[in-house]
């Protein structure tokens, strides 16, 4: 069951007005950004040595770690020749005074599912290349998203972390023993995880009549609605989700696709820089 959030702190009305007045002048609360620009973004890969792939993303004060773990398992019955990709998100309580311990709530599930669909629909990971013994043994790829610090726009930070961790990931070395069982040696590798497409999401918030890119926590708190758009590198839209209690006009949608693609290019650049020589970005 989904319930109107009833534990969010009350937002004073003047704060929304302040934010809107700033946007009208092309400004944001942080005094630095324009309505169209995302916060500074920093992507670092290989941060968890024990994971097959990992990344740490900072988007302003928002911090997300993604870890990729790869195991051997059984394929789904309707796709016997494909590996399995699973995206899971935990909103652990250290990240925000609003998060409580417990199983993923609707927000964590929505986030994981939007990212999962966007990766899946465009075929970001080549699942056909992940069968070890078709119909029997395939690679199971877990993408675990860990929110460490929530200052708004978890979608974009999480998608960047997921994508960077997948690009960082290596398949473990394996041997088939006599019994037919597959035995892994995670200290060696079969080569990189086959990633065919890169995807980023861009989230825009609607505040009054304005649309702004990459809302921080305060902006999200006063926003009427948000729209998350997933882009591949050719600019196609490979996933979308309106989220939050409000509505959008067709004009909003048009503008969101426009501003979204421009921000997507910033995110793709951060991803490139992180992967170049596998060191940090800007």
């Amino acid at each position, binding site marked *: *069951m*989904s*319930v*109107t959030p*009833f534990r969010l702190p009350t937002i004073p009305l003047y704060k929304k007005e302040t934010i809107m007045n700033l946007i009208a002048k092309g400004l944001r609360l942080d005094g630095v950004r324009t309505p169209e620009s995302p916060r500074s973004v920093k992507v670092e890969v290989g941060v968890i040595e024990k994971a097959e792939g990992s990344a740490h993303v900072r988007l302003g004060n928002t911090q997300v770690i993604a870890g990729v773990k790869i195991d051997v398992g059984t394929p789904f019955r309707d796709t016997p020749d494909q590996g399995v990709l699973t995206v899971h998100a935990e909103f652990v309580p250290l990240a925000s005074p609003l998060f409580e311990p417990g199983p993923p709530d*609707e*927000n964590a*599930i*929505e986030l*994981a*599912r939007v990212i999962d*669909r966007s990766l899946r*629909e*465009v*075929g970001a990971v080549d*699942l*056909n290349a992940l069968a070890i013994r078709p119909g029997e043994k395939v690679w199971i790829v877990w993408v675990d998203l860990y929110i460490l610090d929530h200052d708004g726009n978890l979608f974009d930070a999480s998608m960047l972390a997921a994508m960077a961790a997948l690009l960082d990931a290596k398949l473990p070395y394996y041997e088939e023993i006599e019994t037919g069982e597959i035995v892994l040696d995670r200290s060696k590798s079969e080569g990189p995880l086959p990633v065919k497409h890169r995807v980023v999401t861009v989230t825009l918030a609607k505040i009054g009549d304005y649309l702004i890119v990459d809302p921080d926590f305060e902006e999200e708190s006063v926003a009427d*609605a948000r*729209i998350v758009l997933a882009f*591949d590198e050719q*600019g*196609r*839209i*490979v*996933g*979308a*989700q*309106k*989220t*939050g*209690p*409000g*509505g*959008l*006009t*067709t004009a909003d*949608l*048009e503008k969101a*696709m426009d501003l979204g693609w421009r921000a997507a290019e910033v995110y793709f650049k951060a991803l490139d820089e992180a992967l170049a020589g596998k060191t940090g970005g800007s």
Partner: protein
Amino acid sequence: MAKAQVQLISEEGLRHDGRRPDELRPIRMKVGVLSNADGSALVEFGKTRVIAAVYGPREPIQKYMVLPDRAVLRVRYHMAPFSTSERKSPAPSRREIELSKVIRESLEPVLLPEYFPRTTIDVFIEVLQADGGTRTASVTAASLALADAGIPMKALVGGVAVGKVNGVLVLDVDEVEDSAGEADLPIAAAPDIGLITLFQLNGVLTRDEIRAAVNMALKAIEYIVEKEKEALKAKYEF
């Protein structure tokens, strides 16, 4: 989307069930189908059949689940175990949890919760048969049940999904088209106030395709909302 290329559009441009690309399935709506609920509605899009019930505004059982200045909306989208080909476990799946949220957020833009502080408005939706488009049928049924319960609303909401099948945009996709298609774009809107209130994309589309799909959906939703008004009138005229 790496789907097997099934041919679902005939040479004449017709769909596997004979519909034109911009044609809806037969739609049936009935209001006031339950005696206990404050409002209720049954909605069918072809074989997709959902029932929605509204209870409230009422005092919540969990006393803490309130807001001092307005009503809290609770929405549950749930599938009956017998609604799908393979039996669905009745425990809520991650998909049902997500859909409950997007349906709630598709209804909140038209509600006036500040009229009922410290109360709960409950919308319970059961999918009795699933043949594609259950979430948009659910929004439609919920909108009717809310109106039937006498909850004041800025506008009625209706919903429909547009798909892309064999490269063609098609209206009101059924399960066959959904599972074989290249994209599925469920949309809900309140035409009377010009707002899109549910918008999801599962698949790959260009920006031009999205524009075309949204237009196709919004046109159909205007028709669907007219049907809602007729169904509400039908109840109160008899």
